[in-house]
């Protein structure tokens, strides 16, 4: 995986652990961002590595969330099982949507996923006896694990149930969400630094040449699309168990675009970018809340400008900028000395 990624992961882990202690009053704002970050990692594999764009990831996010919500609330199924069911459903749906459009080149996946996202949104609104319609439904249980520790009620030590209660215990939910994001990042880094990752990058660079060299491009594009849908689905499930209430607005096309924006801003050829982008774009409303009415313009503008001027994203953009400064200084120094 490389030493640099290893060091990065250690720093990242320390940052996750330290954040709630350093920003004890505001760390909870990073919980939804961690959820987005996880979905963005999945999308970054598709967008940055396979070079395919999905404008409908909110649909998979919705499938995960609603599957978790509906199965746990209406059928009393264990939340972990429900997450699995959501992933399975998302994967099947992604396969069906992705197969025809990925066989074609260029824009087809973008449009097909955009249309698919809208269809899912319409269904969430219209299929009200299952989804609760526009008013949604609540009462989704918290996630819990069985572990060895002190029981929350009796205080006894032993095998007990630990509940990630989003209201009483934001800290545990924070660690859960960012722990999942950390795991997702490790997973993605391992994947892209393997023969699969190289195959994906080859497809992004020159699909025809990759095919002729023995990389089944169509096959991989579908696989990675399904994988990224599964990431979005897990993120959706986490969201459902965190907010414990579901209604359609968070699953509109806007969320799909926001995810694309996170990946692009962070830098699409770098999985780390998904984390950076998620934090930057997720915190933006906090930082410039006075621009509330300008959101669409601001985000659209950022998307445009980043793509036009720093297509490598802010992470690599900063690195290139620093290199350029150093190169400039070295050059002027040598001029002075000579």
């Amino acid at each position: 995986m490389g030493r640099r990624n290893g060091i990065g992961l250690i720093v990242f882990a320390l940052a996750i652990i330290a954040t709630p202690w350093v920003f004890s009053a505001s760390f909870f704002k990073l919980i939804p961002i961690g959820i987005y970050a996880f979905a963005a990692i999945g999308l970054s594999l598709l967008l940055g590595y396979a070079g395919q764009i999905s404008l409908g990831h909110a649909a998979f996010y919705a499938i995960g969330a609603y599957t978790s919500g509906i199965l746990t609330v209406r059928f009393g199924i264990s939340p972990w099982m429900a997450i699995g069911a959501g992933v399975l459903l998302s994967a099947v749906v992604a396969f069906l949507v992705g197969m025809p459009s990925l066989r074609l080149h260029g824009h087809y996946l973008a449009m097909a996923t955009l249309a698919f996202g809208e269809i899912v949104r319409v269904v969430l609104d219209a299929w009200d006896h299952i989804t609760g319609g526009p008013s949604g439904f609540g009462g989704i249980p918290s996630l819990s694990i069985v572990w060895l520790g002190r029981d929350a009620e009796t205080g006894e030590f032993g095998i007990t149930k630990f509940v990630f209660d989003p209201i009483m215990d934001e800290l545990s939910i924070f660690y859960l969400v960012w722990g999942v994001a950390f795991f997702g990042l490790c997973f993605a880094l391992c994947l892209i630094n393997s023969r699969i990752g190289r195959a994906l990058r080859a497809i992004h660079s020159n699909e025809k040449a990759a095919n002729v060299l023995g990389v089944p491009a169509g096959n991989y594009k579908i696989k990675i699309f399904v994988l990224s849908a599964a990431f979005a689905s897990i993120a959706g499930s986490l969201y459902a168990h965190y907010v414990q209430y579901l209604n359609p607005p968070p699953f509109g096309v806007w969320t799909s675009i926001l995810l694309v924006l996170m990946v692009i801003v962070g830098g699409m050829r770098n999985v780390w970018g998904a984390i950076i982008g998620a934090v930057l774009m997720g915190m933006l409303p906090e930082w410039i809340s006075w621009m509330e009415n300008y959101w669409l313009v601001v985000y659209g503008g950022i998307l445009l400008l980043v793509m036009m001027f720093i297509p490598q994203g802010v992470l690599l953009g900063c690195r290139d900028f620093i290199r350029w400064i150093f190169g400039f200084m070295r050059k002027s120094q040598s001029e002075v000395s000579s």
Partner: protein
Amino acid sequence: MDQAAATSPLIQYIVSGIAFGSTYAMVAIGFNIIYNATGIINFAQGEFVMLGGLLMVWACTVLHLPITLSVLLAVCIVTAIGILFERLAIRPLKNPSVLALIIITIGGAFVIKGSAMLLWGKDSYFIPQFTSEESIWLLGAAIKPQDFWVWGTLGIVVLLLSLFFGYTMTGKAMRACAYNRVAARLSGINAETMVMLAFGLSAAIGALAGAVIVPITSMDYSRGEMFGLKGFSAAILGGLGNSTGAVVAGILLGILESLAAGYISSHYKDAIGLAVLLVVLFVRPSGLFGRAEISRLSEF
């Protein structure tokens, strides 16, 4: 009242479907013009329709201009925006990838949409029909006078475009670019101008579609995306790049949607138009009247 009793829902649905379908057809033509000239799918296409509609409302109700001038003004402004968009966001790119172009047109779409929200807020607007509010009864269906305006506009657009592409030098040059960009450039056609022209032209058509459909449907800042998606569905259904196909497919799509809304559920109206897109991509990506190239790509 006895007229109402004689209504035939089927024909009524078809009639109102044709009006929306004509709009989709115009959006689809807009997609095709840019696609043919550049190979780009312009994700901001639907926003041109929205802008055209809202500007029309503004010109009529705030400036109190007559209908013709209002349409003209709306079309001119949107055309200028289309050209500006091409100059500022598309042209500066050197060797852009398909991915970059998709993302940039999406960014553009959001900037346009957001600006519209700032200017007009989140309210819906509409204006009275161009001529009379009195519906005309035909075969048991009430046809709004505005329907004729929409059909007529589509007819005129198609007529003018076929004259433009068939008989003017500029139009022929644009077709040459669509056929083979490199060869066109070598034979002295300024491809950059053609791209700019394509953006202007398709923005104008989008705006026109928006301006004539406002009296039938209300318009707000967020409507552009749906017009864009349905227009794209029509473009794919008709075979991407094939404008005759786009007209037929657009009208078919409008009718289908209207029938589905009438007989199944109006909740699912939007979903059905889009499901058509997915089904076509699945079954016949070259469209009903498609050209061979696109299906050839599917071999990989």
